Structures are given as C-alpha cells and as structure tokens.
C-alpha cells in the first residue's frame, strides 16, 4: 500500500544566510500508512516540531519533498491549502490560539474555512466536542473562562472538526495532570478507532505513548535515530539513555528478569503485558509435573 504521507530527504535551515543560521532537521525520510498510529519522540530541540510543520506545508523545506498521497504538497498554492485541511496539526500549547466569543464558534473556525454548510459544521462541531469530552453546556461559554485542560480539549476539537485524514498532535499532554493526560490520550485513540485516520503523536514521554502506538520514531539532533515497533526501540535502552530519553520502567524490569533467566518476551513494556506474561509463566510452571 502506498503511504498516505511521506518525506524525502527533508532538510530545514532556520535564519538562512544570517549569523544565526541553524540546521533544524536534516535528511529526514519518513512515511506513514493509512490508519497507523505513530509516536515521535526526541529530546528538546531535536527538531520534532519543525518536522511536523512540514507535513501540512506550514514550513517549506530548504531541500527535499513532502508527499501526500504521492503528490508533492508544494506543487501549487492550491494544493498546499487543500493539504492543510487533510493534514490536521494541533500545535504545542494550542490553547493560546483560541479567539472566538464562544467555544462553539472556535471549534467551528476550521470547518467554516472549509466552506461547509451550516448543518455540516454543526454536526462536526458537536461530534468533535464529544470526542474530546467537552460537554454541551460548555459550547456556549467563552473559551477564556475555561480551565487550562478544558481549553486544551477545545483546541484539539478545533482540528478534529476538520476531519483530517492525518491528525498530528504536538505534545498534546504537556503541562496536564496524570489523569488529564490519560484521558486526552484515550480520547485521541477513540477518535482513531472511529475514523480510521492516521495519527502522529509527538511527545517527550515514552510511558505515555508506548501503550498506544504501532510505531515509534526517535529523533535526535535533527535526524531520525530509530524507527520501529515499540518493543524493538526499547531494546536499545542504552542508546536512548545516551540521547536523554528513558524507556518505560516495565521494559527495564522485563529486561533484567530476562537477564536473570526468565523467558520473558521483549514485547513486554506495559504493566498489563507484564502481568499477563508472568501469570502465563506461573500457570505454565504449575502445570508442569
């Protein structure tokens, strides 16, 4: 199957031609299939945000190409604009972009820009609000009267309402409490299951996404350092530690147990998986004579 979105040798320089010139990303070859959930992790300043802003054409690469369904997204202005609606991007701290009088109107901003009719807009706004757990009665409130976590949800709904084929979220859980984090991730997964869209999640924290993603891409100093299923990536815990990232605690425990001689699989990195594997082992041992 052809990838829905891919990049070829993407390279981006900031402040080109000044003393502040700086290579933010270099030689990025990436592709995502339809329906995949991909996690992007990397240390602060590794170029994650720069990279994802290329995927919907907000930043133009210094060199290289971005392909959406096999078509260069910078082919013409019209194509770039079209892609903006197909590739939804939720920025880091998106609550600072809210501006309308009511939550409803703010979520409707994207769909209205798509020139949908009132009825369609209404369906989408209510649908998106439900996905992120924003109650009906909040819709008529001013977005500035909400709590930080609620604002964040509204901002995410604003992008979901455009029903993009690819939904990219830049650190959607930064600065939230653990239960807020969990519920946002759960909401995003529910949205994925309902729509079958591709999800790209950017984060610092392995724990948070290890459970939910199909694939992990590790960024380091503007390049892709690793790309694979989570269990593969967590095998390289030494390397990850060297670039300032941690692996989930459970996968460390599993690794140590493996070293001690227990036949644990390397695909164990969440508490549930560990529990299942250990119980299965005990069951197996008890069954033996």
């Amino acid at each position, binding site marked *: 199957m052809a990838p829905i979105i891919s990049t070829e040798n993407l390279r981006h320089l900031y402040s080109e031609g000044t003393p502040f010139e700086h290579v933010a990303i270099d030689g990025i070859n990436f592709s995502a299939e339809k329906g995949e959930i991909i996690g992007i992790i990397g240390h602060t300043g590794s170029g994650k945000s720069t990279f994802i*802003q290329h995927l919907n054409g907000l930043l133009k690469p210094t060199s290289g190409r971005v392909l959406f369904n096999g078509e260069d997204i910078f082919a013409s202005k019209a194509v770039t604009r079209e892609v*903006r*609606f197909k590739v939804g991007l939720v*920025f880091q701290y*998106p609550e*600072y972009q809210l*501006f309308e009088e009511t939550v409803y109107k703010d979520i409707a*901003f994207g769909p209205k820009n798509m020139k949908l009719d009132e009825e369609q807009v209404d369906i989408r706004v209510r649908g998106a609000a439900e996905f992120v757990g924003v109650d009906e009665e909040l819709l008529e409130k001013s977005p*500035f009267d909400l709590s930080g976590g609620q604002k964040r949800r509204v901002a995410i709904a604003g992008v979901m309402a*455009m029903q993009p084929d690819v939904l990219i979220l830049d650190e959607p859980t930064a600065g939230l409490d653990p239960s807020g984090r969990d519920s946002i991730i759960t909401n995003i997964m529910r949205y994925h299951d309902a729509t079958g869209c591709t999800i790209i999640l950017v984060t610092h924290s392995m724990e948070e996404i290890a459970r939910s993603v199909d694939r992990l891409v590790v960024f380091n100093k503007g390049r892709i350092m690793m790309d694979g299923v989570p269990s593969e990536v967590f095998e390289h815990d030494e390397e990850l530690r060297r670039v300032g990232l941690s692996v989930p605690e459970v996968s460390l425990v599993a690794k140590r147990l493996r070293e001690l001689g227990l036949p644990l699989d390397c695909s164990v990195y969440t508490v549930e998986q560990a529990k299942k594997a250990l119980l299965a082992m005990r069951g197996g041992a008890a069954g033996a004579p």
Partner: protein
Amino acid sequence: MLRDVTLGQYFPGDSIVHRLDPRTKLVLTILYIVALFLAVDYFSYALMIVVLAACIIVSKIKLRVILRGVKPLIIIIIITGLLNLFYTKGEPILEFWIFKITLEGIKRAVFMILRIVMLIMGTFLLTYTTSPVALTDGLESLLSPLKKLRFPVHELAMMMSIALRFIPTLVEETDKIMSAQKARGANFETGNLFQRAKALLPLLIPLFISAFRRADELAVAMESRCYNGGEGRTKMKALHMRARDWVALVLGAALLAVMIVMNVYKI
C-alpha cells in the same frame, strides 16, 4: 519569515566597534549624521564614504547584512532620486516630452540617494553592533542630566528596554499563532481589504490576550523582587569610558570640524 524583518537586530561580535561604550557610539552616530548633512560636494561625500567604509570594515559586519536594512526603503529612495533628477533647474542635457534632465539634477539625485543610504547604513551599524540593553543603558546615562528637570529618564529607559526585550517574543508568538490558525485554514494572504482585516482577528485577539497576560506576569515578578523605580538602583554592567572611547570621540569631533570647514568652502 516574520523574524527576518525585525528592525535593528543585534549581531553579536567582538570587534572594537562592538566593544566601544554605547554612549560613545550614540554620540558618534549623532556626529556622523550631522556631518553627513553638512556634506555638499564631491570631496565631502568622498570623505564620508571613506569614514563609513572604515567603520564597517572595523566592525567586521558584512556589507551585505548592512545593505539589507536599506531594502525596505528602496521605493522611497528611488522616488526621492527621481524627484531630484527631474525637478532641478539648470542646463538641460536631455529632453523628452515634459521631462528635462539637467547635469545639476543628476548630481543632486546622486547626492540625495547617497545621503539617505549612508544615513540608514550608519544607524544600522549602531544597532547591529550594540545590544538593545546596552543601547538603553547608554541612552539613560546620556539623558540623566534631564533628571534635574524631573524628566522620568529611568522610567523611560525601563519602558524602552522592556519593549525591546519583548519585540522578539511577540514576533515569535505572532509567528506561532499565525501558523496555528493557518493550520485551521485561516487565509492571511488573499482577499480584499475588508476580508483581510477580518482575517487578522484570529491572530490579533490571542496576541493581545497573551501580551496582557505577559505584562501582568512581568509586573508581578518585578514587584515581588521589590522593584520601585530608579532611586538608588545600581547596574550589573556599569558603563565605563575607556581610552578607546575618548580616541573615538576625538576622531568624531575632528571629522565634524573638517566637514564644517568643507561646508563653508563648498568642497
């Protein structure tokens, strides 16, 4: 994008021009501007060009970078040149339709353009080699005699440094909000005047809100550190005039003297 147009950006460096006291540089810039306006003919302009070139070479800032400051004003410069070219009386050397070009016109147009361009380049040299903080410190110190007249010099300087400090932050924020709204399909580039003004709302509202929030936070932060104005306040980086500053000032004064003489004798 946006951040490339910030006026008067500081380029850190370690040249002698960078190391001069900001007060020296401010005074020298004023002397330079006065001298530039005293230039009347070939020799005086040539002298000014040599002086500016020398300063640029010593400052180690690339000519290309300094010329970038001229770019936004190119239209004004061209119009000024053309007006002078066509509206100067004298012996016509070329005539077509209603236009007359005279030798004097050419000369004046060239001088006028030189004057504007050199004015911009000179002031940009100042802002490129002096950090905004140093610049406001220098200004505060130069204006301090006005305190006797109850002129709020310190407050003015504080306001200026806060403003300068927040310009890059606001530019960055504008960039970010603009991108976020574009990601939701906002269109800032096309449409008629009314549509464009309306399209700016999603940008301006969040920007104002965050600016007020920042102002609030900054005020609280300043008050919780007991800031109460300039009285008895000391500086972390106190300004010091050194030998090189006095030499530079003497050279500047000498330049001005020479220019006055040249102006009087029209050379």
